[in-house]
């Protein structure tokens, strides 16, 4: 008898509570979304996050969006790691470029800490989707191309490959990415989550305080000690990258991706960011090997793509007082390099009229 009766024996009404729950959810989320889109309220809140967990990237991205809206004349993006962030000052570059006879070159410094050429390629794609620059300046040095690993660099690499918003912006649909892009409530939720991590929030505040509206890092590094090499035990990846230099295929591919942006409307300039002598001495083969194994192949690769290669070392010498540490220039060093870069670009880009 029981064998004949169906297992599922539901009677109506059925499922009213879940239906009511969905209705309540839709209504309350709709109201919240509307509320959080009011500019007056937005002004009181910290900016919506992209959920990357890379606090300084989040700050730079916000700065970039804000700067681009406030400066429609923006026609140049400077990209690279923290060396570029602290090493190329858009203000000094603009002044030197104008003075040397060029036309206005309005740059935003989109330097992001702990990235290599692989992540810089992603960053370039993101930036170019937001605006249409005439010039992309990519600052790099040996660590951007070397094959090496470290917990921080691996984590940042993972973020740039896996973050749902970055993937969404680059054309792969992800629900979280779509919500991050289009929902104010979701963006503020991500900010709230970032706020829960004390370390991430502090890094975010420090990065915001240290960064000028054009993206340049103005505040000296905490360890502003000059070109003194780090302890091997504290930063083993630095010695891995330089002491046993081998270019990483993945990072070279990132460089090629940036070089491939070059076209008749967009000039790509690759500038080799200078390093102090003490740091170059760590390079496998020493100071003599550095130009042969690193600079020359880089120059050839860039030239083959049709982009422009500049060696920041040519702006030298950079005295000890111009170094924040073993591979970052301080603001004086950045002025020095940026003025030289502005003059060189004026010579090179006069015909291009950016």
């Amino acid at each position, binding site marked *: 008898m029981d064998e004949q009766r169906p*297992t599922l024996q539901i009677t109506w009404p059925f499922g009213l509570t879940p239906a*009511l*729950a*969905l209705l309540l959810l839709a209504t309350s989320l709709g109201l919240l979304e509307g509320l959080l889109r009011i500019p007056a309220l937005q002004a009181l809140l910290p900016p919506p996050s992209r959920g990357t967990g890379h606090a300084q990237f989040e700050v730079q991205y916000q700065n970039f969006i804000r700067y681009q809206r406030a400066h429609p004349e923006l026609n140049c993006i400077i990209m690279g790691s923290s060396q570029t962030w602290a090493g190329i000052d858009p203000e000094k570059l603009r002044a030197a470029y104008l003075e040397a006879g060029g036309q206005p070159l309005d740059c935003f410094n989109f330097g992001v800490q702990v990235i290599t050429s692989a992540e810089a390629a992603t960053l370039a794609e993101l930036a170019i989707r937001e605006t249409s620059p005439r010039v992309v300046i990519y600052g790099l040095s040996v660590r951007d191309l070397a094959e090496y690993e470290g917990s921080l660099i691996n984590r940042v690499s993972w973020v740039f490959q896996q973050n749902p918003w970055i993937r969404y912006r680059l054309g792969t649909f992800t629900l979280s990415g779509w919500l991050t892009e289009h929902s104010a409530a979701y963006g503020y*939720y991500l900010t709230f989550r970032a706020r829960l991590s004390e370390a991430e929030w502090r890094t975010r505040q420090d990065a915001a305080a240290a960064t000028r509206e054009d993206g340049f890092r103005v505040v000296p590094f905490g360890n502003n000690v000059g070109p003194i090499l780090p302890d091997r035990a504290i930063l083993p990846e630095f010695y891995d990258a330089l002491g046993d230099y081998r270019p990483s295929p993945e990072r070279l591919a990132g460089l090629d991706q940036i070089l491939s942006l070059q076209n008749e409307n967009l000039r790509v300039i690759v500038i080799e960011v200078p390093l102090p002598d003490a740091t170059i001495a760590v390079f496998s083969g020493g100071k003599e090997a550095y130009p042969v194994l690193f600079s020359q192949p880089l120059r050839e690769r860039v030239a083959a793509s049709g982009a422009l290669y500049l060696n920041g070392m040519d702006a030298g010498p950079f005295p000890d007082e111009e170094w924040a540490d073993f591979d970052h220039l301080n603001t004086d060093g950045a002025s020095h390099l940026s003025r030289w870069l502005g003059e060189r670009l004026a010579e090179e880009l006069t015909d291009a009229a950016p």
Partner: protein
Amino acid sequence: MSITTLTFAGFVLLVLAVYYILPHRFQNAWLLTASYVFYLTFTWQFSAILVVMTLVNYWLARWLEQAERRKKALLWIGIGFNLAVLAFLKYAGYFVAQFTARLNSSGEPGALAILLPVGLSFTVVQAISYLVDVSRKQTQASTRPVDFALYFAYFPKLTSGPIERARTFLPLLAQPRRVDNRAIAENFTRIVVGLVRKMILANAFTALAPTSVLQDPSSSSPLALMAWLVAYAFAIYNDFAGYTSIARGVSGLIGIELSPNFEAPYFSRNFTEFWNRWHISLSNWLRDYIYLPISRALLRRNPSRGNIANLIVPPIVTMLVSALWHEAALHMLIWGLLHGIYQVVERIPSLRGPLIPVQKLPRWRQVAGALVVFVLAALAWLPFRASLPEAGRFLAALATNWPLLPSTSWMGLAGVTAMLVPALALDALQAHSGELVFLRWPRLVQAGLLAGVILAVFLVSQTYLNVPTFVYQGF
């Protein structure tokens, strides 16, 4: 396939859709097929091992039931076979890995490391209890191979229990099932509560108890270390209780009720009560097949109240077996030993006279008892979670890193405190008014709560890129 994924939700819906259509005589075969498909999502080797274990135990039980002589020998062969499988796949893997690590210059575990099938420990204890029950004539050997195979492989309980006895589970398989409005509401509630425990509470507490603290406890203040212990205690509890709740809910939608495994264990007022509320199905198994046989044997020799051996040996041995069941490692044995000692100490007064039932003690003693049990249980989680050197460093930092107040970890402390509010409220509600108390609330309140849960689970699933696997899946 983790049971908190959308893939699993889709799998369950598909299984249910077909299951509800099928007549009863085909339903168990369908559930068995689905269970093996589920198990195949881990690796095919796991399924092969499960098939072998099923066949061997099925035939052994039949022989055991029919045997006129050498019943005991057959039982021990069966127990030995199951323990050998466990020892080889779980413990030998550990020792081989350690051995090859010593051989390798890198010190890394070698390629000979053996794969531990998910949920093997759960299957083995079910197999042993089945054989023992058949030999004691407490249950009959199954004559329905499909039902018996399903007893081992039933997917809602396959990876982390609850540990069901054949004598209660097989009759459920034999009879037709009924799933009505009430069953759907109750089991949907269990699933929702399980998701809240796993996705929201356990994940948050896990984030608040980072492994980095174990690696360098000296950089944390005692208060931060205490907060870590509290967070870990609630993380492991909600992780496992969440899994069980989801498993019971899914099984309930099939029409098969699984045993409850947790009843607000951190409200226990002594350790006997704690083990009646924590991982109940394993505790009951240990009680019936380890503790009571030892205790009976000791009491046969000396039936007096002052039998000190009976005070000490059964709890210590039982908890050491429990520790070994979890993992063959020294730190885990320390965890078991600690719980054994806790139980011995609290039963010392029983040497003089009957213990006063805990519910008859004054209120303040019940509260104080609960606090003491929680603190000691939380301390015991340390060797459960960490290696002995890590646990030692942790305790040293806890004792010496004064001042008590942290300089930088207010967010962590605030986080633990904030998460304790909903975690304790959920336990208090369920302990006081029943597991399904929510179904008695007004519909609008239920809907509001469900809306909040849907939102929270969605947000967590979208932003925790790597939801940790269930802790007990590792056993």
